[in-house]
C-alpha cells in the first residue's frame, strides 16, 4: 500500500492531472485540454510529461486504468480515473496550497504578474 507521505508534495503535472480526474474519468487528450482550461491556458502539458506522470501515478496507485472505450468517432481510447488514495493526496495538496495562499495574503505579498509555462 502506498503511503501518502511518499507521494506528497506533488509535482505540478501530477497535481493538475489529479485535479482533472477528480471531476470524472478521462482519456489522455481530455486531461491535456482540461489542464489548459483549469489554468486559463497558462500551463501546457505535453504528451511526454502526461504519460511519464501517468506511469508514476499508476505505480503510486493515485490513479487507475478505467478501461478502453470506443468513442463516437470510432477511435479506441484508454480512460483513467482517480483512486481513493489519489483523492486523499489531492486534498492534502490543496490544503497545502490554501495554507500557502493564506500566508501570502496575510503578509500582503500577492504579486501582480501573469506567467505562462509548460510542465
Amino acid at each position, binding site marked *: 500500500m502506498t503511503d501518502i507521505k511518499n507521494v506528497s508534495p506533488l509535482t505540478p503535472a501530477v497535481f493538475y492531472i489529479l485535479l482533472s480526474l477528480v471531476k470524472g474519468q478521462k*482519456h*489522455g*487528450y481530455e486531461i*491535456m485540454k482540461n489542464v489548459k482550461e483549469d489554468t486559463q491556458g497558462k500551463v*501546457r502539458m*505535453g*504528451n*511526454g*510529461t*502526461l*504519460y*511519464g506522470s*501517468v*506511469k508514476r501515478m499508476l505505480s503510486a496507485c493515485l490513479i487507475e486504468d478505467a478501461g478502453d472505450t470506443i468513442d463516437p468517432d470510432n*477511435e*479506441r*481510447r*484508454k480512460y483513467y480515473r482517480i483512486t481513493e488514495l489519489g483523492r486523499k493526496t489531492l486534498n492534502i495538496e490543496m490544503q497545502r496550497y490554501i495554507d500557502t495562499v493564506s500566508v501570502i495574503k496575510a503578509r500582503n505579498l500577492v504579486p501582480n504578474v501573469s506567467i505562462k509555462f*509548460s510542465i
Partner: protein
Amino acid sequence: MKTDSTHKALTLYKALLHLYPFSYRKTFEAQILQTFRDHYRDRQENNEDIGFLFWADIILDEVSNILKERIAHLRGGVNKMNKYTIGITIGLLLAIIAFISNVVFPSPNVSDDQNTVAISLAYLLMFFIWGLSGYLESKKNKRLQAGAIAGAVTAVITTAFVMVSFILIDNLFFDTVKQQVDKVTAFHNQNTYHDMRVFINSGNVRALIIGIPVAGIIGACLGGVGSGIRRLRFAKH
C-alpha cells in the same frame, strides 16, 4: 490533404517514440499515439500552428521524458542485478577490453609502466563494482556478512573471467603476445624456462592460483564496506 498531413505527422511522431525503452512503449505507445492524433487534429481543425514551434514543443517535451524513462530503465536494470550477473558482466567487459588491447590494437612496445593511468582506472572500476555488489546485496539481506559474501563472489567471478581470457589470448594469439615488451624482458631476465609459451603459461597459472583468493578477500572487504554504506545511508531515514 489534411489526412495526408496527419499521416506524415503520426509517422514522424511514431519514429520519435522508438527512443523510449521497449517496456514503456509496449504499455503506452497506443495511447500516446491516440492522444497525439487527437491533439494534432484539434489544432488542424482550429487552424492553430502545426509548424516549427509545435514540433519544437513536442520534441523538447518528449526528449526530456525519454531521458527520464531511459535513466529509470537503467536503474531498474542495475537494481535487478545480483552478485553473479554483476561478476559475469564486468568479467566479460574486462575480457573484451583485454582482447581489444592485446590482439585487435596491440602496442608491443608500450610497457605496463607507461599505461599506469588506464590500468589504475580498470582496477578502480573493478573495486567499485565489488563494493556495489555488496551494496545491492544488502537490499535483500541487511547483514554485513551477506554483503561481504556478495563482494567476494563477484570478485572471484570477475577475476576468473579476466584470468581465463588472458590464458586464451596468450595461447590463441601467441605470435602477437610474444612481442610484448614486458613479456620479452621478463623472459630474458629468468633462467627457469627455455620456451616462451611455457613461461607465459606458468605465469598465468600462478596468477590464477594466487589472484583468485586474493581478489576474493579484497572483494569481501569492499562488499562489506558497500553493505555498511547502505546501512548507514538508510539508518538516517
